[in-house]
């Protein structure tokens, strides 16, 4: 567990160091020899309640986080894990710190949600401290806005040492002859633009791009079958009246531009 002390007041540096080592050791013991359920206390340090709803969704029978012995308790005095949501606002900073101090010492702090991790979408607000780790040492970060119940389960499993971390810091440096591939180079440029525009107009931006992409893949495909048949098969396979209408409209554009679909 990584320990970052940010706002824990220290009197003597050496004493604090030994205290920190002690806490780290105790934390390891907590994970190995706990022999009972993990008690979680939830702090909402200025969140929108989205995260809290997902935490409770993780407690429902569908995800049932209690089958791993993870229990939400109403008092920080019982807590082994402090689950902190919200962007850590100025008003909630002190109550959050009080709850942190009230929890008995080998404790794990989990920063939950985009706001808890970094401040999220509120990171540059005047009243926001920007993340749980600005006021207390955080052991596990669970990103998401909000994290889904499976992401919550994964985060707890990571905190309790049951699963391994998947996400690693990545760094890419451009290679000297790196070139970007043009998508669907065989579809004429003007047609490509017209198709994408129409699909995005009809289906909304993100889905429109996806639909235009799959349609142009059909056009691009090097196949013995005629394009019209491939499109018909695609429409039949997807079996979605909304998609059918959009694809018909895209076909009409192909015909009007002059490429025979």
């Amino acid at each position, binding site marked *: 567990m*990584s320990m970052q002390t940010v706002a824990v007041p220290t009197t003597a540096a050496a004493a604090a160091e030994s205290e920190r080592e002690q806490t780290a050791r105790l934390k390891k013991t907590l994970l190995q020899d706990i022999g009972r359920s993990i008690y979680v206390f939830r702090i909402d340090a200025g969140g929108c309640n989205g995260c809290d709803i997902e935490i409770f969704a993780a407690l429902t*029978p*569908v*995800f*049932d986080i209690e*089958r791993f012995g993870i229990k939400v308790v109403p008092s920080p005095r019982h807590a082994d894990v402090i689950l902190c949501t919200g962007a850590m606002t100025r008003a909630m900073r002190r109550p959050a710190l009080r709850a942190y101090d009230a929890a008995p010492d080998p404790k794990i702090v989990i920063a939950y949600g*985009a706001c808890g*991790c*970094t*401040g*999220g*979408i509120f*990171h*540059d607000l005047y009243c926001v401290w920007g*993340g749980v*780790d600005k006021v207390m040492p*955080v052991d*596990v*970060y*669970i*990103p*998401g*806005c909000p*994290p*889904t119940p*499976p*992401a919550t*389960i*994964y*985060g707890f*499993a*990571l*905190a309790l040492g*049951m*699963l391994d*971390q*998947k*996400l*690693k*810091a*990545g*760094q*890419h*440096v*451009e*290679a000297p002859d*790196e*070139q*970007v*591939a*043009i*998508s669907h*180079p065989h579809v004429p*440029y*003007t047609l490509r633009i017209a198709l994408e525009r129409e699909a995005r107009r009809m289906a909304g*931006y*993100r*889905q429109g*791009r996806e639909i235009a*992409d799959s349609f142009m893949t059909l056009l691009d495909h090097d196949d013995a079958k005629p394009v019209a048949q491939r499109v018909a098969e695609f429409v039949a396979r997807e079996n979605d009246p909304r998609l059918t209408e959009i694809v018909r409209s895209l076909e009409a554009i192909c015909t009007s531009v002059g490429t025979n679909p």
Partner: protein
Amino acid sequence: MYKLLKEAFRTGNVTVRYPFAPLPAAPNFRGKPHYEPEQCIACAACTIACPANALTMSNDVAAGTRTWEICFGRCVFCGRCEEVCPTQAIVLSPEFEMAVLDRADLYQTAEFTLASCRNCATPFAPRKEIDYVVALLVNAGLPEADAERRRAMLEVCPACKRHSEVVREAGSSGSGWHQIGVTP
């Protein structure tokens, strides 16, 4: 009681087996943004679209590089980066297992080289972006020689373009397109 038990047996087990078995993501689920730096032209459209400033870009003019960075801890998974990306370099994947122990693992960066202006030698635009524009012109039907001639125009920074335009408008033959060797 009997009714309840009957209902419970009828419903059966609803709990997902998730940590022990992979969980299939729902269609249209927006998870971790999957970034392919090879496909990125560093145009910064995503960083402008990002409402949470999870995507950021910074230029280092002295080194001639542009650094793209994503912070998964700040991302709100809205998919706007995917919407605006012209080359599909960033796509939201169904991946949701993003919890980390160390905050540094939430960051992913990519470094791109900037092309220098032919006129004033200041780095101003990513090399890959200019290459992509030329490739797009060729793909749109422009003869290769013409596209390469346009490259000379593309590799001039906006400030120099403005300057040469003003000079040309003023009727002077100082520095300008004549010097670069391109007729705009």
